[in-house]
């Protein structure tokens, strides 16, 4: 399964959800769905899910989707118990699992071929945790994943190296305009 194809399915089912993406996933996601409600979590690897938890708590009526990476999740694995404890019903946590640090040369993660991320999320206390290897099954289940009370977790096992790793514009990704655009997009969602 390819990350791009997964993201196209998520785009089609997104509704008005806020989407938090990080690094390689963020580049790919913005290519698929350049929406002002996209938040880019960059600067400190692993923090996308923690940002997403903050949004889920701060905007409890708003669906929050996080597009994490497997290397990123490994760098903040404690997020699983924190999210499970906070138990936000509006949070869906996707982990794009390709087994590599794609943006840093494609080296394997220490979890490649051994770790079970959905099992970790389930054991941590997520309301639901799933793993997908095929696009058809993922596409079939996606509406239920987005509708179920969270926190919901889904590992998306994708092919490594699908996107070119060296053509990324990090200046664009890190730019203050990304945060300003997001803040302006979120403002109408704030209650008095």
């Amino acid at each position, binding site marked *: 399964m390819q990350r791009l194809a997964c993201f196209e399915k998520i785009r089609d089912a997104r509704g008005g959800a806020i989407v938090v993406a990080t690094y390689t996933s963020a580049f790919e996601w913005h290519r698929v769905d350049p929406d002002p409600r996209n938040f880019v979590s960059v600067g400190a690897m692993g923090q996308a899910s923690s940002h997403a938890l*903050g949004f889920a708590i701060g905007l409890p009526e708003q669906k929050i989707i996080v597009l994490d990476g497997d290397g990123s999740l490994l760098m903040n694995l404690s997020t699983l118990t924190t999210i499970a404890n906070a138990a936000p019903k509006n949070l869906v946590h996707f982990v794009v699992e390709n087994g590599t640090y794609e943006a840093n040369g494609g080296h394997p993660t220490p979890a490649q071929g051994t770790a079970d991320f959905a099992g970790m999320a389930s054991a941590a206390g997520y309301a639901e945790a799933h793993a997908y290897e095929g696009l058809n099954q993922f596409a079939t289940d996606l509406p239920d994943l987005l509708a179920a009370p969270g926190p919901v977790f889904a590992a998306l096992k994708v092919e490594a190296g699908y996107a070119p790793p060296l053509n990324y514009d990090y200046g664009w990704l890190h730019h203050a305009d990304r945060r300003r655009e997001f803040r302006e997009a979120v403002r109408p969602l704030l209650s008095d």
Partner: protein
Amino acid sequence: MADAAGPSGRDLISALKRAGVRHIAALPDITTSAGLLWPLSEDPDLTLIRLSKEDEGVSICAALSYCDKRAVLLMQQTGLMDSLNNIRAVACENEQPVCMLVGLLGKEPDKAPSESASFGVRIVEPVLDAMEIDHILIEEPNDVAQLPAAIDRAYETSRPMVALIGRRVEP
């Protein structure tokens, strides 16, 4: 000789509320545990987010600021040290108003942090200075009065702020 009096947890909670804070992301710290964290965990006006690791709280507080909600991260100075990369990225470089209450474990009640025999305590203020992070020191009961203005300043300038808690907080 009796230990010098520390700040009051009741006053700290009152100061946080005066500053508009309603969310606390925290990992327990013995300097603030009995006097602050336990009472605020039972306060119906505050939402406590129990962290597994301190740097998660930096991102959570930053995200809450986008939602127009004020938050503080409560932790020990060891957690501050462990969170420096995320503070550098999210709070400093991305200019987000992340406010932190940091208990100084091992600081002698009668010494300034810079004069502590503890290396881990002694380096905290120089590290914050190097990162150009606004910080205040709360040791005595009267020091709590500085806190609301420091939080307001952080949100008005969209910059991080650290309030160092230099003595054990009294209930």
